[in-house]
């Protein structure tokens, strides 16, 4: 009797051990799977960076450096770094600072860089305050019934294709700017940034609202219990607590703005000259790629890849500095 008992006990112990080992194995396998998934993003960034850089390498060497040599030797101009810096560096500086885009001779990216920065900056300036305040409205002020209508509406705004925004901008906003500011052409940085600011609203609102709602209710209750007003609580307790999420929304919004192509092509005029003001036409890095990629070959194509790399560097710098900022504040 007792022997049997011991045996059964031993058996069940072994069973348990086995099943716990199996469980451990499954746990480990899934852990590995999750880790692997997380690395797909990393791998993508590396592959994208590698291919873009590889394709863009010939541009500074064969246009910038050759051009610098020509300008120095044939036209007697002085080019920064010529003669003592490596060709690639001279070429890169030449590309980034030259304001003449005239393929197949000159590939100056300065007007496009200025256009992209101006349009994005202005769009963020106009779009982010409206977006964050709307997020506050949704998370804190609006009654549930209003939220139930507004949130799907804003998700719809996110789903409207950029081509539609461009179409709208072309037919409505461009003529409006012509009338209001009395300028010869309304196709301008301002038109571009108005369209962009509407386009980034859904991203800014969705992410900001999520993070505002994620603030623990104790914060709100504590502040209100101390006699603070609802508005005071929102601006002095909730927003600081949700700051990292709101900044994420702003980054994603900026990313959308700086990367927008089709809408911008339709409303900004695409003039490859240095813009003189916000009511002047301009071209962005993205628009230039989209307009010329279909027929560009050789060095010209490489120069367009180089525009892609400039966009990439811009985004990396932006993300890096915001990550740094968030880390400092988290301490």
């Amino acid at each position: 009797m007792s022997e049997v008992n011991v045996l059964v006990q031993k058996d069940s112990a072994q069973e348990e051990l086995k099943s716990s080992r199996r469980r451990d194995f499954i746990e480990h396998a899934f852990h590995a799977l999750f880790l692997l998934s997380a690395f797909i993003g990393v791998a993508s960034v590396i592959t994208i960076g590698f291919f873009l850089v590889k394709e863009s390498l010939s541009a500074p060497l064969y246009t910038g450096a050759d051009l610098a040599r020509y300008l120095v030797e044939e036209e007697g101009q002085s080019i920064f770094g010529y003669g003592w810096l490596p060709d690639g560096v001279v070429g890169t500086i030449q590309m980034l600072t030259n304001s003449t885009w005239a393929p197949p001779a000159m590939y100056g990216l300065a007007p496009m860089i200025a256009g992209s920065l101006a349009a994005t900056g202005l769009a963020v300036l106009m779009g982010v305050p409206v977006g964050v305040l709307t997020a506050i409205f949704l998370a804190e002020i609006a009654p549930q019934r209003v939220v139930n209508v507004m949130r799907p509406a804003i998700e719809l705004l996110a789903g409207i294709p950029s081509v539609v925004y461009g179409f709208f901008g072309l037919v409505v906003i461009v003529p409006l700017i012509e009338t209001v500011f009395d300028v010869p052409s309304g196709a301008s940085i301002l038109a571009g940034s108005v369209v962009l600011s509407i386009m980034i609203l859904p991203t800014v609102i969705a992410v900001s609202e999520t993070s505002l709602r994620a603030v623990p209710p104790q914060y709100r209750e504590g502040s209100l219990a101390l006699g603070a007003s609802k508005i005071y609580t929102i601006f002095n307790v909730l927003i600081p607590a949700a700051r990292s999420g709101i900044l994420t929304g702003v980054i994603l919004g900026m990313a959308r703005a700086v990367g927008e192509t089709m809408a911008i092509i339709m409303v900004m005029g695409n003039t490859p000259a240095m813009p003189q003001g916000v009511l002047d036409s301009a071209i962005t890095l993205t628009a230039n790629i989209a307009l010329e990629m279909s027929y560009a070959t050789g060095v010209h194509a490489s120069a367009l890849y180089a525009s892609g790399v400039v966009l990439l560097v811009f985004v990396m710098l932006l993300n890096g500095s915001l990550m740094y900022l968030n880390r400092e504040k988290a301490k």
Partner: protein
Amino acid sequence: MKKFAAGALALMSMFTASSVVAGETITVSGSNSMTSLMEVLAETYTNKTGNFVEVQGPGSSAGIRAANQGTSHIGMASRAVADSEIEAGVERIIMANDGIAIVVHPNNTIENLTTEQVSKIYRGEISNWAEVGGERAPIVAVTRDTASGTRAGFEDVLSLKQTIAGKKVSAISPRAQVANGNGMVKTTAGQNQNAIGYISLGTVDESVKALDINGVDALVANVQNQSYPVARSFVLMTGPKTPDYAHAFVEWILSAEGQEIVAKKGYVPAK
């Protein structure tokens, strides 16, 4: 660019692999401004013979390359193709002519410009309508993207070229706005009182005003008798690798039936 050729090749193999229509598949690629005409010809031809025609419009230069490399059966270019651009065995066939209309807003008081005035406007040397006899208002010049065959044709005809660092580049002012299609130019010119643009003659309608050039009306008849100065040819190119069933398609385009479609679409028949 090697990559692009490889891409085009991949594209072509895609089409042949995915073709569900019985019969042969004829591949045509090149000038973007020829695709709308070519697609109509292609579809009519497919319905007639059962041979499928795939049309891609990456641009005239790509069309010349495709004909040289044999990546497409037929290449299309909407500009004069120089001898130096093609390889031995590649034939050029003019399938139609196209006038380029210089268009302005219907309210603009200008009726006529000389080719020199148009050229100066696009170089940025004339920037006010008063300088060409119009009202005192700044000119908003609208050009096409550099991939456009219409732009290439326009630059050729008006010698809008300059030399920078030993290379020939476009002389169109960087302050001219760039539109990414005939339709976009038309929309801008139809909307903005100060705008000037250029589009295929076949696409002009009442939303814009086509100017007389050197006193000649922008009319199909004037392109045909070669009195209208801003005109160009639509060129097809076939190479040694072009199969007979593709040659048959070219012959059909040049036949009375094909040329009738050309005329119906607003272009000027080659014959």
